[in-house]
């Protein structure tokens, strides 16, 4: 019996290898100016 359903997610450990290019959007330049929200920002490389 399958007890676990895993949603497709980005492998954070893998993202260490090619991450950190800095080209993605600064969080406060989107739709928040009073909180910090990075989890919903898109990576420029995997768009």
């Amino acid at each position: 019996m399958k007890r676990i359903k895993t949603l497709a997610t980005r492998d954070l450990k893998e993202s260490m290898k090619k991450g950190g290019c800095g080209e993605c959007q600064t969080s406060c330049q989107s739709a928040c100016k009073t909180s910090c929200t990075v989890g919903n920002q898109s990576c420029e490389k995997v768009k």
Partner: protein
Amino acid sequence: MEVKVIHQYKNNGYNIVLDVNSGSVHVVDEVVYDVIPLVEELQNNGCEDEEIKGRILADLKDKYAAEDILDAYSQIVELKEAGMLYAPDIYENYIVDFKKRETVVKALCLHIAHDCNLACKYCFAGEGEYHGRRALMSLETGKKALDFLVKNSGNRVNLEVDFFGGEPLLNWQVVKELVIYGRSLEEPYHKKFRFTLTTNGVLLNDEIMEFANREMANIVLSIDGRKEINDLMRPYRGGQGSYDTIVPKFLTVAESRKQMNYYVRGTFTRNNPDFAKDVAHLADLGFKQISVEPVVAQPSDDYALRPEDLPALLEEYDHLAVELLNRRKEGKGVNFFHFMIDLEGGPCVAKRLSGCGSGTEYLAVTPWGDLYPCHQFVGQEEFLMGNVDEGIVRTDIRDNFKSCNVYAKEKCRSCFARFYCSGGCAANSYNFHGRIDDVYELGCELQRKRIECAIMIKAALADLEGEDKVK
């Protein structure tokens, strides 16, 4: 401090397990849900496989059949071996090294006008003037700011400039000329500007919309929701509400941008703890891109959120999540900014853990060209970093912000949400604790709930759409 590597919770009928350090999200049955924390604890105590099995069987024998417990355990072990459960935090040295990189500036918040035609009661800019004098940015100062950005951006290609205020449309001619100037810098310097505009909408007209639709990658339109809620906090200086003026204009903007690349953005306060109704109202008006976020205010402000408000606010997010799912099922889905989460294509771990970039990659520029760590620090003289003529003079301020990351914040180290909020807002921390490397606890509680809701929505959508994302 014990650092848990699993965050699990129940929401809207889903048992959700977040493996914090790998970012994996699992939707599990009751047996697995109960076994996972036991295994974590036993592993932390140094127990081996056989001992773990014996202990979980003993602990759960009255609740589940032995074969179900062992089956759940074997599936848990499988995920662990795949690096998707109980993954360790291996990022601290990486992030510290990452932050040691040479600083570049890639984003500016241009305070194009320290003046406003509204008198919003919660405005951190103090009705536009940031507790200083009224002023408009000159074209010359704006050009120097863009030159400063290009010069200090190293090899970054994408540069971001937000036209902010006060109300930037009070200085629209300069905005337009700065966009034209910025575009003229793109080819010779191999840069790409992303211009954005944050406006209260009062002065929007066809000419502005046409220009903005051509040149602005995003437009943020300020409105709080229901008429009575909006007009209570967002009046004109004479006291009358702004709702009736702005709604038709905002609808035109939304449609003219094909319902993309804009946000109607609101603030909720103690006056509307039922803010899900405001999100619903904006959706009913016809907006598809919606952001409504909690006010940040001094405890002495009567509209400030208080710790005792928290249970109701958390519940309201749950209501909102269900409401948005229902709309989606009815084919009337809208995008709520603070429930957006990009599980598959989200940011790399460097972005997630290194902080928002304020004071380093991201700076605010006043109308007269002074540089501050971000828009929220403008007017606080101890954070004045330099100006567009001389560049960053107070490198000590920059270095303080540079060393700010989730590992520098004790309270973030043990929080599952650190991978989604990047350690929170430095300005909020400063406002509540007088230092930038602390956290704003009430904001954190709300942030954690938003992330939980966002992940639940993903789980529900995976069910709903029957997407083949289940491994």
